[in-house]
């Protein structure tokens, strides 16, 4: 199963959710932000190389960290050389060999969001409760609908106890999982660690999101 994690607005926590969802599902997380990657990179071939035809998708998956990861390069030259047409086949190839795939999509409504949605079996939306992020999330949801990537759940990131969970649920017509702002989650992300490894309770929202994915994957 391929799950595209989208959100529309930048900085709402898509990468954090994707990384932790990957940890819960024992999936390969693919950083598809061709222009502004923010998941750990390390050495070796990356998604830019794969999309430029210089590396094999499966061989580019790093299995030496807490979460299997197909990182994306961070150079403009690498992004420019990458052929986005290869993205759909790349995701399919990783899924075929490695199992579930979680795609960390970039912000916006470009083809680097559209292509993962096209390849995905379903999508997961990340937003914060503020009005601007919600408006962008609505656009991302509309694009997912255009490309038949059904919405599994909404991660309402940085949700305080007063967050409008019911309203968001009603707006998107999908279950909403509030993800409270916790220093341990940020600390884990900064150090390449799933939140559950930093503090068990911090992993609970991501486990709940994974539960919604498994319901469909069964």
């Amino acid at each position: 199963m391929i799950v595209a994690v989208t959100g529309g607005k930048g900085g709402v926590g898509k990468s954090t959710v994707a990384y932790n969802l990957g940890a819960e599902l024992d999936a390969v997380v693919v950083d598809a932000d061709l222009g502004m990657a923010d998941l750990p990179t390390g050495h070796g071939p990356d998604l830019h190389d794969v999309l430029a035809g210089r590396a094999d998708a499966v061989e580019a998956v790093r299995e030496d960290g807490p979460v299997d990861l197909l990182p994306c390069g961070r150079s403009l030259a690498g992004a420019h050389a990458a052929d986005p047409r290869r993205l759909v086949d790349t995701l399919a190839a990783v899924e075929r060999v490695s199992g579930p795939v979680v795609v960390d999509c970039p912000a916006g409504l470009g083809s680097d969001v559209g292509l993962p949605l096209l390849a995905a079996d379903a999508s997961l939306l990340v937003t914060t409760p503020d009005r601007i992020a919600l408006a962008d999330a609505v656009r991302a949801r509309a694009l997912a609908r255009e490309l038949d990537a059904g919405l599994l759940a909404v991660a309402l990131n940085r949700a305080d106890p007063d967050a409008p969970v019911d309203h968001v649920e009603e707006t998107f017509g999908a279950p909403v999982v509030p993800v409270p702002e916790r220093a341990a989650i940020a600390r884990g992300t900064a150090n390449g660690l799933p939140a559950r490894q930093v503090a068990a309770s911090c992993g609970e929202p991501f486990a709940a999101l994974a539960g919604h994915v498994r319901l469909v994957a069964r």
Partner: protein
Amino acid sequence: MNAEWTTRHCADRTLIEVTLTSDRPRRVRVEPTGDPTLHPPRTGGIPDAGWDDTGFSGVVDGRLGLGFAVTDPTDSPPVTVDWRGPPDDDPTFEGHPDVPRVEATTDGVLRTLSDPRPPRAALPTTATSGEATSATDREHGTGEEAERDASDRPTPERPSAATDGASPIRETSDGATKDEPSDDTPSTGVDLAAVERRLELAERLAAAETLTAASAAVAAAGGIDGVRALDGHLAADRDRLRALAERVETLGDRVDSVDLPVETLARIGGERP
């Protein structure tokens, strides 16, 4: 506002059909009574829009039919219908004004949505810009390949009217850059393939009729600076093409007027037929 329902048993489940009517748009929440296990309608395994683990939320405007199943015996009435007033001004997902219709194919996505690749204008073009090329890129030789076609997009850093404006900038393996003609630059000094690509970009910019299309085209050109640089490059292209056309015409005239005396020369040279 009205709600009617029917139930029927099928194997170990009870199928419930609900018909909701309202003469004006109204939000509604429908849940089965009791605490049964709900099986919402699904498409491709994913619950349809509006459905969650415990019921349905949506808007009724006129008439709306719902159908779902529960595994446990139903109470009477089998559903609770909670009318929640007029809908908010939330935009709908169908036909969102900011989201174009996209054909669900790779080509369709690439055609309609913006290209994720950074414009060539954003690529490093100075000797020190090798820093922007990662170790991975150098390891796999990507830098040079990426720069190879750096000539056919606007490069604001370079003077557009420069006589050598069509020359690409190549990055060598050690990160240094140098000017030299691209592989497909003919001896005429005009890289026609690059001109064609610049024209395609310009035509796309000129043809954009919607805000979305215009934004995508401007982004593809590297922002408004890229558009201005493109304009400068096209002006230089126009001059070079005009010069090339004149040269072609002159050469054509000379080709037409020359009559090469092959046989005479052969005789003078003593060649025997």
